[in-house]
């Protein structure tokens, strides 16, 4: 993936609204040139055919209908010919209508596909820091409703362009017949276009407001139903009803507003062509008396107006969709123009056996915040020897997650460098990095896929994917094999949306199996066992440390194995991964070879549990928080016992 050469926006539209609108439509048409050439060409043909229908009808009236009804036998014999001519234009019209719609539909669908592909490619390219700044809902609507909005104008566009041709041809046909008749027929057209324009301009904001309120009513309902237990518990049904009813009544008013705009404009828009027809009748009669036109010309002109009634609306549709399309496109362009994807490295990272050495040198991470930048990490220097287990502790916001996420290069440090076996991560080939460093995050993510695919993250039949034995072994190490075995399809069981059919702790264990199956050289656990039962957590961590000795054996049930593996650090041949974990439970923290205490983005101290307890008051506070609490409670109980005993004595 090449890095974007410059940060100049390539997709955003600029200039006045008219300029931006033309840019938007021009780009869309140029993006799908063949489809739109066909769509617009056919639409022009459709326009011309529509006028032809009225012309043929006029001609048939003059040459067949009127003479035949006046008793002209020859004309009567020609009636079949006239019918055939009319049927001929009817078929042509039908075909052009079908093709016009089909090509417009293809263009619309292809443009949506183009935008969606572009947007999702960006989602996968841009770094985590970008994702953290953009809420999920927004990114999803960028790919769904914004794409629909941005392409909305392309649905009626070919039709509207065909109507331009239709009006031009109609004007020429009428003018060659009679200028006065033409004037009478065409007078209403500008008004009809104008009425449509005003209508759409009034309608768009009214509809948008109603849509916004509809979303907001849904939000309230969603929130309220999610809070159902709370509502029931506090008995606040009345309050919720009131809240919902308030927004519902706003929506009702907005819907009525939309209705009223339509109620007023619909009759006006219907009325205009009819007034045009009456004008044509009046003026036509006058011109007939002076012999300038025939009955058929009047019929043709009047009929043309009824045919034009719907097509002139197309301008309104295009103009009405434009504001929405521009807003939608601007939102998409912001995603497409976002830069900052990490430049991938090119150097291979040799896959030596055993854990990797991790170094951080002068690492600092700044992120933009409200009025300037916030420093998440400052001057972090670390050196972690291969195979060691390091726990990172600190209060919320100390920078623990930021620190460990650097190891998977989810983002790059602002200053300093992160090195793996002496290589700067920025220079390492991404594929090597992801193969050797496995991260299990705070929130586990489960794909809507089978258990197997969720562990291997590979397609079925991928030769590089771990085999089922390896998957089972990883599941066993993560203490989730029993859960999977109990599922009806075993490894083939589909996991629902976000793993809905697993509990939080089971999902976390599955995520750990996903990391372990890769036999990583660095394992990063970012509070990855928060929902796992403490005893199981202990078993997993113990299993990890003894992994290579027990890899081919069943689960180490007895603690003896774990204890035996407790201090293999000195053993040069020890080949487990280097583990870096963020943990909250002291029982897990104390299992680490070394503990790094972070506060305010700096390393306060590092050492063993005992060392830190002895010399780091902040750590002591953290570590003893639970203990102090249970001691205090015990003391309270004693006080109470003494007090009640005292009361007994008094009595």
């Amino acid at each position, binding site marked *: 993936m090449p890095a974007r050469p410059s940060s100049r926006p390539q997709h955003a539209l600029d200039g006045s609204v008219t300029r931006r609108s033309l840019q938007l439509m021009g780009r869309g048409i140029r993006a799908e040139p063949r489809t739109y050439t066909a769509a617009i060409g056919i639409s022009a043909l459709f326009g011309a055919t529509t006028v032809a229908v009225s012309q043929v009808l006029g001609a048939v009236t003059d040459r067949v209908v009127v003479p035949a009804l006046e008793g002209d036998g020859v004309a009567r014999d020609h009636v079949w010919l006239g019918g055939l001519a009319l049927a001929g234009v009817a078929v042509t019209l039908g075909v052009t209508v079908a*093709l016009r719609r089909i090509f417009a539909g293809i263009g619309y669908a292809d443009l949506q596909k183009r935008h969606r592909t572009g947007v999702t490619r960006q989602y996968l390219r841009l770094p985590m820091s970008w994702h953290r700044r953009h809420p999920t809902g927004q990114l999803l609507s960028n790919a769904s409703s914004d794409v629909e909005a941005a392409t909305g104008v392309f649905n009626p566009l070919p039709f509207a362009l065909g109507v331009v041709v239709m009006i031009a041809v109609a004007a020429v046909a009428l003018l060659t017949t009679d200028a006065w008749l033409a004037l009478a027929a065409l007078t209403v057209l500008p008004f009809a276009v104008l009425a449509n324009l005003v209508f759409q301009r009034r309608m768009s904001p009214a509809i948008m407001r109603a849509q916004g309120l509809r979303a907001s009513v849904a939000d309230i309902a969603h929130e309220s*139903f999610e809070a159902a237990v709370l509502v029931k518990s506090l008995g606040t049904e009345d309050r919720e009803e009131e809240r919902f009813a308030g927004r519902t009544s706003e929506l009702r008013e907005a819907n009525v507003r939309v209705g009223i705009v339509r109620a007023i404009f619909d009759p006006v828009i219907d009325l205009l062509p009819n007034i045009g027809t009456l004008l044509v009748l009046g003026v036509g009669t006058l011109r007939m008396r002076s012999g300038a036109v025939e009955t058929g010309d009047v019929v043709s002109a009047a009929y043309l107006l009824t045919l034009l009634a719907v097509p002139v609306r197309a301008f309104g549709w295009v103009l009405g969709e434009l504001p929405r399309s521009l807003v939608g496109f601007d939102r998409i362009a912001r995603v497409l123009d976002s830069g900052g994807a990490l430049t991938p490295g090119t150097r291979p990272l040799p896959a030596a056996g055993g854990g990797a050495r991790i170094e951080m040198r002068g690492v600092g991470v700044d992120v933009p915040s409200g009025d300037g930048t916030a420093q998440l990490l400052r001057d972090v220097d670390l050196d972690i020897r291969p195979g060691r287990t390091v726990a990172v502790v600190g209060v919320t916001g100390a920078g623990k997650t930021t620190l460990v996420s650097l190891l998977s290069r989810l983002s790059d440090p602002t200053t300093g460098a992160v090195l793996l076996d002496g290589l700067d991560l920025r220079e390492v080939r991404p594929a090597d990095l992801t193969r050797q460093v496995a991260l299990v995050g705070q929130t586990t993510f489960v794909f809507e896929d089978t258990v197997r695919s969720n562990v291997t993250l590979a397609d079925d039949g991928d030769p590089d994917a771990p085999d089922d034995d390896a998957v089972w072994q990883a599941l066993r190490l993560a203490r989730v094999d029993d859960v999977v075995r109990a599922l009806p399809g075993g490894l083939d069981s589909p996991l629902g949306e976000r793993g809905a059919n697993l509990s939080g702790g089971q999902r976390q264990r599955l995520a750990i199996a996903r990391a372990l199956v890769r036999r990583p050289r660095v394992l990063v656990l970012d509070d990855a066992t928060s929902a796992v039962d403490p005893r199981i957590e202990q078993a997993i961590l113990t299993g990890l440390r003894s992994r290579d000795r027990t890899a081919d054996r069943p689960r180490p049930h007895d603690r003896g194995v774990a204890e035996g593996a407790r201090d293999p650090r000195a053993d040069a041949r020890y080949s487990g991964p280097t583990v870096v974990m963020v943990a909250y439970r002291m029982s897990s923290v104390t299992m680490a070879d070394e503990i790094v205490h972070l506060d305010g983005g700096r390393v306060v101290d590092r050492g063993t549990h005992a060392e830190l307890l002895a010399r780091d008051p902040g750590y002591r506070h953290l570590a003893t928080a639970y203990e102090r609490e249970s001691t205090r409670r015990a003391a309270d109980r004693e006080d109470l016992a003494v007090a009640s005993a005292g009361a007994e004595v008094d009595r």
Partner: protein
Amino acid sequence: MTTTSRTAPPTRTAAGSHAVEASRIGRTSDLGVLATLRRGVQVSPEIVQGLGLTIVLAVLAAVGRVVVPIAVQQTVDTGVLADGGPDVERVVTLVVAAAFALLAAATCSALVNIRLFRSTEAGLATLRVRAFRHVHDLSVLTQGTERRGSLVSRVTSDVDTISLFVQWGGIMLLVSVLQIGVATILMAIYSWQLTLVVWACFIPLVLVLRPAQRRVNAAYTTVRERVGAMLGAISESVVGAETIRAYGVSERVQRRIDATIQATRDAQVRAQKLVAIVFSSGVLVSNIVLAVVVVVGTLLGVDGGITVGQLLAFLFLVQLFTGPVQMATEILNELQNAVAGWRRVLGVLETRVEVADPGPDAVVSPRGPATVELHDVQFAYPDGPPVLTDVDLTIPAGATVAVVGATGSGKTTMAKLLVRFMDPTRGRVLLDGVDLRDIETTSLRDRVVVVPQEGFLFDGTLLSNIAYGLRGADVDAADDVVEARVRSALDALGLTDWLSELPQGLTTDVGQRGESLSAGERQLVALARAYLAEADLLVLDEATSAVDPATEVRIARALDSLTEGRSTVTIAHRLSTAEASDLVVVVDAGRVVEVGSHGELVTAGGTYASMHASWVSQTR
């Protein structure tokens, strides 16, 4: 709560009845189309308000549609082709009269629209609110039978379908029917033979379009399904961004997304092709009709059956058929969707409220220290084996009780019975000696409050979220009074230091579901809320997720103050909580196996003692 009784059956089923049958939320009501409309109107009578006048106006508006064809006929027959050359004066009179008629009809038409929108929107708003309220009135068990999203759609998109139908299809349906009716009458006056010809052409089209439209519907269903799958795949790329990067699987994910995008595109194009064919066949037929009318009309006219003007008027009248016929299938579709939506909403309203307010005979439970007794309680989830059996238990007033037991032992079920989220299948739960089923719901909720594991937070400020615990008259108190109450609650719970750490203090925006707070902080909010609720009995579901130690200490401190002087039942997941309680209840496989103080149970050497021993060896 007075409003509950509105939806509750007047008498509850006999206490202790065995059938806690699963009241699922009705997928849809079983009513037919007409019955659905009738029932719908019954629920929201606003819809038919002033309908008579609206229909009269609609008929007048429809008459306006044939003004132009009549004008054409009259102008041609009595003006243009008048004996002695075109009669201009007559034509001008006709045209002016027609113009006024058009204006009058347009006004009627506008009034019809406005009146219809007003009445239906009023009715639909009522329907929405009633369905919303009914969902809250249903028991937690019933609520649990439907996904939240599906419940939301009952009060949103399902009602929107009806509203959108009225805004477009409904009006079109009314206008079309009347327009075709009026046009047919006029045509029959001119020539019944030609009228038959026109009808004979359009009826087959309608018949052909029906099945075609069904295929169009199927095609759009496919589009919607594929869009759903596509959005699912795209959302994985967003929600799973970290995992995808950490494991370098973006190419695989992109392949999956691309496949769904392409599938969506193909479905869209296919659907559009079908629509194009259906629509253009309408255009084709109505223009063919034109040719047929000209031919047949001319042949009829030769025999003096029809005048030139009448024949020309026919050409314009045929146009009045085209629109409705082309749209008929689409309108019928929308009508079906609207009726289906209506059925789904009515389905909610038809769902029985199982844990209902006792109604007029309800007992108001007096405030004060709460004693709870469970007598011979059994509970089974619908179609399931009993999860609680023979439970007899007394929770003395003011005591703190910890319920311990393995996952699935029945502790959570017991908690739900204590607060009457469900009624026992057998036996009784008594609050100060009164069966919960006889206590007025408002009164019960005032006295008994649950603090769930994951406190739910509304998208708003910290202040509004904590103040949510206020009840009764306090809800409507002035802002400064509310704030003072919230501050004093935080103070009483020892959480003032936490508040001072938040840069925005009480105005901190907690985000959707409170996600800008940590899990521990959300628990603090839940505790503060419970404090404000001033209940006599608290049922706490202890949180299991790990929180950072500083917050942990705060939670523990706040819990101590909160439970002070109240009866408290804690579903304990930590034995340290049990240690600190007055009474420990051990539940195993749906039965209460041990009850006693921590000390007693440890000495007794039973289940609890061994649980405790293994815990101590793990942690100390």
